[in-house]
């Protein structure tokens, strides 16, 4: 065992104390600490009181570079990711210029490697259509060669089913899955929140959950008909969950993600016209939150993702209708979902599955299951650490979160990627 470069001692894994041995950037073995293994290693680390978790994968972020570096750039986004526990980060194509050609993809990858040579690793998502205009297909073969791992028109839902069908087919020829932001555009135009009693009282233009579910239904039918997989982004409501459950029972190749805010916040959070709680899809009802939690536990919802959408303070500090949608999530996501484990609404296994195993499976990324030979991508997580969400404690440039000023429990104490310490 002379090649072992790192030994992490006394970490908690599945409620047992373990020692993790790392060699050549990979997991060598995971051994009960009780055995008191004697290893010659360059480095030893005592992780008493800390949880051992695989590094997380976030399959839905907006890192804003190129074009909107004042909101976020790749270096700052990956900084937030590293400290938030994310080792793999997929970023959406709605940059300026749009990531619809290899030059943009390559530039994104270069920027990531320059800023964070040992990771977090960036995996760009290519535009589905040129300029995200939903008129012509983007050159997906070129984008896939350059490093795009999936395709999406995120944020600008494709209204024409025929075009979307062709995009799914063409993307699958490249072996890539299409990610859809499910929203029937005509029902959601100008909407700033969920349609219901709260929007009616506040007088805010709103969209019903049906706007999301209608597009979910379309996508499921296409995936069933074409026998091609589809991934549904940021699912937020019970109606969608019921459709996805139905599709999975039929064997349709559909996977779906949700975000921490759809598991914890409701439309009432918009009261007082708080633009920090303006997000698309909008925060829904208590019943929807319960449906999302249940769906995550049962596996109907496969994946957790942040939909990290940083904005500059001055962009959010405007009249509610004019504020852009989005919540900055990389800094807070793991703590928020850990909070759900503490409340016994989710289990730690749910987190590992939804934050790591499922996204790696869907997007074809190497995953750490702590088997010998797995990439040594892992976190030491302090479950008791308390911290306050403030502009200073957030590493993302985007401080736009309704959690500002709240205290969260659980923080990343150390983050290793390929056996190298990044945090």
């Amino acid at each position, binding site marked *: 065992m002379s090649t072992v470069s790192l030994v992490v001692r006394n970490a908690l894994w599945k409620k047992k104390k373990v020692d993790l041995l790392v060699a050549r950037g990979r997991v060598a073995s995971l051994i009960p600490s009780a055995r008191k293994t004697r290893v010659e290693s360059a480095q030893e680390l005592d992780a008493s009181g800390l949880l051992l978790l695989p590094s997380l994968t976030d399959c839905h972020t907006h890192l804003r570079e190129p074009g909107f570096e004042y909101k976020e750039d790749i270096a700052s986004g990956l900084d937030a990711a590293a400290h938030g526990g994310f080792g793999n980060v997929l970023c959406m194509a709605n940059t300026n210029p749009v990531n619809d050609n290899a030059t943009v993809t390559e530039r994104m990858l270069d920027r990531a490697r320059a800023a964070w040579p040992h990771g977090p690793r960036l995996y760009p998502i290519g535009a589905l259509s040129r300029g995200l205009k939903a008129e012509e297909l983007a050159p997906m073969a070129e984008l896939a060669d350059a490093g795009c791992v999936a395709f999406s028109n995120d944020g600008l839902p494709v209204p024409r089913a025929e075009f979307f069908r062709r995009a799914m087919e063409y993307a699958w020829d490249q072996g890539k899955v299409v990610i859809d932001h499910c929203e029937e555009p005509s029902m959601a135009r100008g909407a700033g929140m969920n*349609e*219901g*009693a*709260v*929007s*009616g*009282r*506040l*007088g*805010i233009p*709103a969209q*019903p959950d049906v706007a999301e579910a209608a597009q979910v239904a379309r996508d499921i039918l296409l995936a069933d008909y074409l026998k091609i997989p589809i991934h549904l982004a940021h699912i937020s409501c019970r109606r969608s969950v019921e459709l996805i459950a139905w599709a999975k029972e039929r064997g349709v190749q559909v996977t779906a993600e949700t975000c921490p805010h759809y598991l914890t916040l409701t439309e009432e959070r918009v009261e*007082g*016209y708080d633009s920090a709680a303006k997000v698309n899809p909008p925060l829904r009802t208590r019943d929807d939150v319960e449906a999302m939690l249940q769906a995550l536990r049962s596996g109907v919802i496969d994946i957790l993702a942040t939909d990290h959408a940083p904005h500059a303070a*001055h962009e959010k*500090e*405007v*009249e*509610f*209708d*004019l504020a852009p949608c989005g919540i900055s999530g990389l800094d807070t996501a793991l703590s928020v979902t850990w909070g759900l484990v503490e409340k016994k609404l989710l289990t730690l296994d749910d987190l590992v599955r939804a934050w790591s195993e499922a996204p790696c499976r869907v997007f074809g990324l190497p995953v750490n299951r702590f088997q010998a030979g797995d990439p040594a991508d892992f976190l030491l997580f302090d479950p008791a650490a308390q911290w306050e969400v403030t502009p200073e404690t957030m590493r993302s440039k985007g401080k736009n979160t309704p959690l500002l000023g709240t205290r969260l429990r659980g923080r990343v104490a150390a983050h290793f990627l390929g056996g190298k310490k990044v945090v």
Partner: protein
Amino acid sequence: MQWRHKDLLDVSQLSADEARHVLDTARYFREINSRPVKKVPTLKGRSVVLFFAEPSTRTKTSFDVAGKRLSADTFSLAKSGSSLSKGESLKDTALTLQAMNPDAIVLRHSVSGAAQFMAERLECSVINAGDGRHAHPTQALLDAFTLVGRWGDLKGRTVLILGDVAHSRVARSNVLLLNLLGARVRLCGPRTLLPPGVDTWEAEVFSDLGKAVRGADAVMCLRLQLERMQAGLLPDLREYSRTFGLCERHMAQAAPDALVLHPGPINRGVEIASDLADSGRSVILDQVASGVAVRMALLFLYMTRKSAE
């Protein structure tokens, strides 16, 4: 009564006693408006900014007259003449106005919540003169003042609000205030113009005008914006006026001497029959006169709040 509020954002901030106090104060000022010399020195040396970021004639003029009759200096700012049209944010406009140290800002804005946005950033009083679809508290107070002037009290009275409730700040504020003052509220309009969650409102909802009007003591018509046709919410004006346009035939079903209100400007022959608007039932011009008195009362209460501290 010691006035405790800095801002008037919506009637939901007011207790029933406070709302009645506004109306009592307005009664005093109405008397001034009938004098040959319609001016008192109450607010001499104080300044009010009338910031109308959305077109308005009657509300703005009403506040202007109210301020001047109290001897306050009134300054007008419209969106087209302000830096908002040059791309300045509402926050910066607010801070700029604040630096000039007015005693109150009267704000009209097309976005729901804009008044609260300003109030959170300004030390002076903010009076909401209509924000998006959300609230128009001074209109609700002047409507109540008009009805109280006729009836003495709203308790046990039934008021029907008719038309485009979904997009109406007048309706939202009136539902709250009429309930607060003890009236029963009915709403009537096509489903496409009723707000989401209307079943949770303190009101009885009707789709049939003939039924809605039965026994009502007053009918408040709402203005129909012509954009509603383009948005696919209504077929055309003719069909709307046939089904929801209020006319004398409907009023025959209402309580004897039932009143007709309209916040203006009216579309004659659309939401209200022309002859009905001019009839003895109509209190539309009373509403305008009430508006000045109620706004005098509000400017007085909010602007003298500071000196009371």
